[in-house]
């Protein structure tokens, strides 16, 4: 058995490797190595935990690691890149629940040893870990169900008072536990109330708000781990939990800014005020929308020198990334310069589009952030919008009473001509018409993203 100081030193090394590992993620070139350093850190931490002198039997530990490792490995190798948001949602949830369970087990053990003399730090952080972990677990399961299309948006009156009540009940159980640590039932009561809270928090939240929800649950899973670290007085958990908590929080704030919404606004499902005087679909579209055939679009592109492609959730839904790649290769073989404009909230989680494009072998230096590409649209011959809607709606810029007013958008309308590949004129998540589709310089190709991209490519090849 190793002395405690040695094990704690191993935890410190693990924490350093995690930090250096995340630092590797600051550039695609160093990212693979960074991830491996993180994995090495985890291995060191796990071996150190096994050598802790409190650990006397290994059967359950080994069995758990084998079962969990097998499930994790199968999930990681089987999952499709388009389903990555679901995978991350599940992982968020599993992280949360394991922290709750660890805190619960530690509380039970401590109470069995010390009875009512358990320190306050112990019960308070145990309650915090249980609360945040259970909210994360159930909230993530709902997010998973929504992303997978198993459950729709369930909006109900009084969601706000219900959530407030559930939170108060959970906190009351926590206070009870702090006063009387031997009241094990209070911990499980807290878990029950927090579980209901997790469900009712995420049920009303719509699909396009998922990037915010997933980022926030990611942050919660870190906070739950850090709180479990306070229970166990374990620095490895505290440091790592706060790193993950910070990471999720930063992503959450980036997502909120990209939608020009506040966090409470997303969480409590408060939509922007409905614009009574808003133009209806008919007023915006009637007689102005020009639909085109793939042949005409191909002809238009034959003279183009620069093309910017704007992918959206529609590209993920129809698994169009490979078809888009083929179109890009065809254009590049004709000397056209092609880049991708990626809005921060395109898709269902931060960076969703980039992963899909990387899967289709699009180099990362061809993917441009919003601030980088926006000034370039004026010099762009053709902008192709594939399955995106609200993130290219010029009303965000021009109409201050629009529900998306002030939201930063990709200035696609500034390009010389615009092609929109979309199945119909149906509204995006914001539920408003998009004047881009009726603009002078826009042609619509009414098709599924994959078919549309393939049709244009074939027309180009034949032409």
């Amino acid at each position, binding site marked *: 058995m190793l002395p405690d100081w040695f094990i704690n030193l191993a935890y410190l090394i693990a924490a350093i490797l995690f930090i250096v590992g995340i630092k590797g993620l600051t550039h695609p070139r160093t990212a693979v190595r960074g991830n491996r350093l993180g994995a090495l850190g985890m291995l060191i931490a796990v071996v150190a935990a096994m050598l802790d002198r409190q650990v006397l039997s290994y059967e359950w530990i080994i069995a758990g690691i084998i079962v*969990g490792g097998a499930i994790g*490995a199968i999930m990681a190798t089987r999952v499709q890149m388009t389903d990555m948001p679901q995978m991350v949602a599940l992982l968020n949830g599993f*992280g949360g629940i394991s*922290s709750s369970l660890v805190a619960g087990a530690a509380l039970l053990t401590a109470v069995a040893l010390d009875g009512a003399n358990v320190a306050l730090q112990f019960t308070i952080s145990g309650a915090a870990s249980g609360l945040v972990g259970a909210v994360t677990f159930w909230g993530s399961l709902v997010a998973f169900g929504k992303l997978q299309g198993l459950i729709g948006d369930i909006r109900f009156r009084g969601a706000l008072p219900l959530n407030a009540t559930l939170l108060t009940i959970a906190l009351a159980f926590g206070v009870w536990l702090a006063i009387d640590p031997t009241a094990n039932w209070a911990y499980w009561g807290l878990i029950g109330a927090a579980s209901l809270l997790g469900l009712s928090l995420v049920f009303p939240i719509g699909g396009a708000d998922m990037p915010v929800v997933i980022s926030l649950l990611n942050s919660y899973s870190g906070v739950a781990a850090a709180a479990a670290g306070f229970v166990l007085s374990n620095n490895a958990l505290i440091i790592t939990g*706060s790193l*993950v908590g910070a990471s999720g929080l930063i992503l959450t704030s980036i997502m909120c800014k990209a939608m020009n919404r506040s966090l409470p606004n997303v969480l409590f499902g408060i939509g922007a005020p409905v614009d009574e005087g808003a133009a209806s679909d008919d007023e915006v579209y009637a007689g102005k929308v020009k639909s085109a055939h793939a042949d005409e679009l191909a002809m238009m592109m034959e003279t183009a020198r620069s093309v910017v492609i704007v992918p959206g959730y529609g590209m993920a839904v129809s698994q169009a990334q490979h078809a888009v790649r083929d179109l890009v290769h065809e254009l590049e073989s004709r000397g056209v310069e092609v880049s991708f404009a990626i809005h921060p909230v395109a898709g269902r989680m931060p960076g969703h589009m980039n992963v899909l494009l990387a899967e289709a072998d699009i180099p990362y230096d061809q993917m441009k952030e919003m601030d980088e590409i926006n000034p370039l649209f004026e010099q762009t011959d053709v902008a192709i919008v594939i399955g995106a809607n609200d993130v290219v709606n010029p009303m965000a810029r021009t109409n201050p009473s629009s529900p998306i007013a002030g939201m930063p958008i990709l200035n696609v309308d500034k390009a010389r001509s615009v092609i929109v590949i979309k199945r119909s004129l149906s509204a995006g998540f914001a539920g408003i018409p998009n004047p881009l589709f009726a603009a002078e310089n826009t042609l619509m190709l009414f098709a599924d993203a994959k078919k549309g991209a393939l049709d244009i490519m074939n027309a180009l090849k034949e032409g």
Partner: protein
Amino acid sequence: MEALILALTVFVLAIFVGVEIITKVPPTLHTPLMSGSNAISGITLVGAIIATGSPTPLLTTILGFTAIVFATINVVGGFMVTNRMLGMFRRKD
């Protein structure tokens, strides 16, 4: 109380470190950042191992075992899927 303050110190400083490095992660890598941070938040595995291996009543062992399963899914699934995604990112040649 002293232990609590010490833990709080570590917590707050680590948050600053986290904010400092994570703001530098480019948007292109935000999905791998999330799955990778999922993997490292599986660090609760450490707590789960200690809870499960200690000589405790059966209920605690079962709680610990369940926690090990979930945390290991996070660790193994998170690192593997992140590795898979990052392997796809390449430069223009």
